[in-house]
């Protein structure tokens, strides 16, 4: 083997942030304090699917140390936000819908955390309840209530209900592929709602700096420039007026791609002129922020007796919950990865990103390709056993190599070492057996 020709690349350099994070010197959003800082807390939805008919904040306003309570009435011109579709309201107004338990109804700003919490607990609501849709299959049925009124939140090509987006994956001739097959294997795979669970809950400090005329936000974000643009369009201000200063972040795993405390902090500091801090509890974080999408994956695979894959038919139904977030991209990324690293000439696939009243689905490590991996590589094992082939040999026979074409029609011409990973794994297995 060649000696590493590099001085720094390829070496185990100690992480540049190791010292500050080990000594506690690193400043995370929740570590930031100002002398005259206020604390904000959000009153969340009281029902997963209902019209808000009445919102009584008088008792909250009467709590000592509560500075103000902000509702949609105070900011009627706010725009919805969202990573792909602008479908998520900053605050739910009267006669508007709450679509999941994380929707925000009001922001209580107080001198102390305790007063903010108490204020939230004293806000009273009256709602008109609607059918709660927790299952994406029910959401697609003809008589299901429609979760979003706006037509542009839906895929116009699909007559079924509550579908934010649908995608196709079509290549070759699926009938020919199944006709060539000696064995056809059909299975349904289902995955669950997952929480990314970074140790640090959503938190941050907002301060309207009147000298610079900037809303300064110290909030952990995976993409500050994208968050800045979304916040600015939601508030209806120029991008330059919104400044995100990234503190130390900590884990995110996809959960810090979405807006969380950002816009509420901006409103609270604009309203009070003071720095305001907000930190979610774990419960609030789990209910109000994105989840890994549960997928229902139906997979039908054709294979010859010699182990050559001939056809794949796949349907993916993804529950994106109340809002799209990254959902449309997550679900079709799953669909696009449905062959795994194996060459299949004939494919027919369809995916649906479906609204429900569950906590919304967003980004999480692997972005749809993780759920799909469970399906295709369980399927590969099942087929290998049915054919009586060694699972490793079966994979090797179908694996991509230089010049292979993916399910989406990309010719792989660089860095395609999947067969090398199989060979290396085999060697590791044999090494271990040799030791026994």
């Amino acid at each position, binding site marked *: 083997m060649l000696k590493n020709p590099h*001085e*720094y*690349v*390829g*070496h*185990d*350099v100690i992480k540049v*942030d190791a010292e500050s994070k080990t000594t506690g010197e690193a400043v995370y959003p929740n570590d930031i304090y100002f002398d005259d800082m206020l604390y904000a807390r959000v009153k969340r939805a009281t029902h*997963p699917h209902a019209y808000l008919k009445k919102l009584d904040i008088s008792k909250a306003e009467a709590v000592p140390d509560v500075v103000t309570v902000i509702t949609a009435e105070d900011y009627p011109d706010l725009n919805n936000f969202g990573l792909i579709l602008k479908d998520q309201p900053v605050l739910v107004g009267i006669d508007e819908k709450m679509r999941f*338990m994380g929707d925000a109804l009001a922001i209580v700003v107080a001198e102390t955390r305790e007063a903010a919490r108490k204020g939230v607990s004293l806000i009273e609501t009256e709602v008109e309840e609607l059918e709660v849709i927790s299952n994406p299959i029910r959401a697609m049925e003809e008589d299901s209530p429609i979760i979003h009124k706006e037509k542009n939140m839906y895929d116009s090509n699909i007559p079924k209900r509550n579908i934010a987006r649908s*995608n*196709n994956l079509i290549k070759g001739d699926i009938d020919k592929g199944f006709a060539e097959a000696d064995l056809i294997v059909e299975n*349904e*795979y*289902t*995955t669950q*709602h*997952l*929480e990314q*669970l970074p140790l640090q809950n959503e938190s941050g400090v907002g301060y309207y700096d009147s000298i610079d005329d*900037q809303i300064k936000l110290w909030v952990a974000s*995976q993409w*500050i420039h994208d968050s*800045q643009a979304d916040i600015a369009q939601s508030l209806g201000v120029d991008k330059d007026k919104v400044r995100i*200063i*990234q503190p130390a*972040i900590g884990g*995110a*795993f*996809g959960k810090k791609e979405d807006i969380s405390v950002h816009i509420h902090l901006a409103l609270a500091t604009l309203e009070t002129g003071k720095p305001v801090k907000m930190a979610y509890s774990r*419960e609030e974080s*789990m*209910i109000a922020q994105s*989840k890994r999408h549960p997928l229902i994956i139906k997979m039908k695979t054709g294979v010859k007796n010699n182990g050559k894959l001939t056809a794949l038919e796949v349907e993916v139904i993804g529950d994106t919950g109340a809002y799209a977030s990254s959902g449309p991209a997550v679900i079709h990324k799953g669909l*696009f990865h449905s062959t*795994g*690293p194996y060459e299949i000439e004939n494919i027919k696939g369809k995916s649906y990103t479906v609204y429900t*009243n569950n*906590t919304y689905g967003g980004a999480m*490590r*692997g972005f749809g*390709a*993780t759920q799909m*991996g*469970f*399906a295709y*590589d*369980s399927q590969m094992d099942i087929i290998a056993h049915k054919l009586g082939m060694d699972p490793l040999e079966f*994979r090797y026979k179908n*694996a*991509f190599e230089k010049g292979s074409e*993916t399910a989406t029609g*990309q010719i*792989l011409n*660089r860095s395609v*070492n999947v067969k*090398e*990973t199989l060979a*290396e*794994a085999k060697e590791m297995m044999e090494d271990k057996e040799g030791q026994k």
Partner: protein
Amino acid sequence: MKKKGRGLSTIMFGFGYGEGFPDYSKASIEIKDDGGLLIRTAAADVGQGVQTVVTQIAAEVLNTHTSKFSIVEGDTHTTQNSGSTSATRQTYFTGNAVKNAAQDLLGKIYFYASKEFGTNYPEMEVEEGYAFPVGEKDEKLSFREIAYRAGESGKDLKGEGTFYPETYDFDENGQSPKTYVAYTFMTQIFEVEVDTDTGLVEVLDVKTALDLGKAINPKNVEGQIEGGTTQGIGMALMEEQVIEDGITLNPNMTGYVVPTAMDVPNFESRLIENSDSEGPYGAKGIGEPVIIGASPGIANAIYDAVGVRITDLPITPEKILAALKE
């Protein structure tokens, strides 16, 4: 009774946003007044180590120790867009942007230094923050001094770099000749032990072969493999946010069970380095791929151990016991 089994998984991950989405990173490198080098990027470091990776890359290009570099945290008003820390893209995208910025700075240093030395451009070398004519270290000029002299003639000595690879949007059939910038592949072998009385599954051993082009920092790669796989074990065997009629029944860490140190198996990892990608020094992204193999690999190992096939995650003891009964 406890039964052992072994399961395999092979996965792929197309990384970067891809699909024609405008996806790029920008970075710059400045020479500070104290002679140190400052890297500016908005790339979020969520513990995966992008700040370390780009420091190593800049140190490599400028032949100057990593300790001489510092890096700013992102600020929308002082750093330029480096895209998101997601889609397994930062090493590849911001790594290349910083490499380009470092090369831009190096080119400028050579240009101005060769004027000072009267050498044939670019017959220059750099080492530890100094430039000198090839083989004549005693003649050295510091980067700071070169920047100062360039500044006197109104030139700002600063390296800037952008990496903006093309991908193409897909058609109505989901077809695109360049869907993603590149693909990472991985094969893993899981050894599990299933207790047929309780349905409990213990993951004993994980062997990983990862196709990553080039490991910029091998130890951090191993950390990603072990952390990602452990998170995948959570998905495979225990984690679920239970939402019934829109209500989360377990919104806390008592009810939402994740792997602890006691659930972490033994790991043996091999890094397949062909340095054959367009990433910096041939590197590919690995952050997301390393979580994918666990759930199929463990499902396959459970089948090997006790002959039951679970297709619904997570694979809880209840599901295993119910399947064993059938």
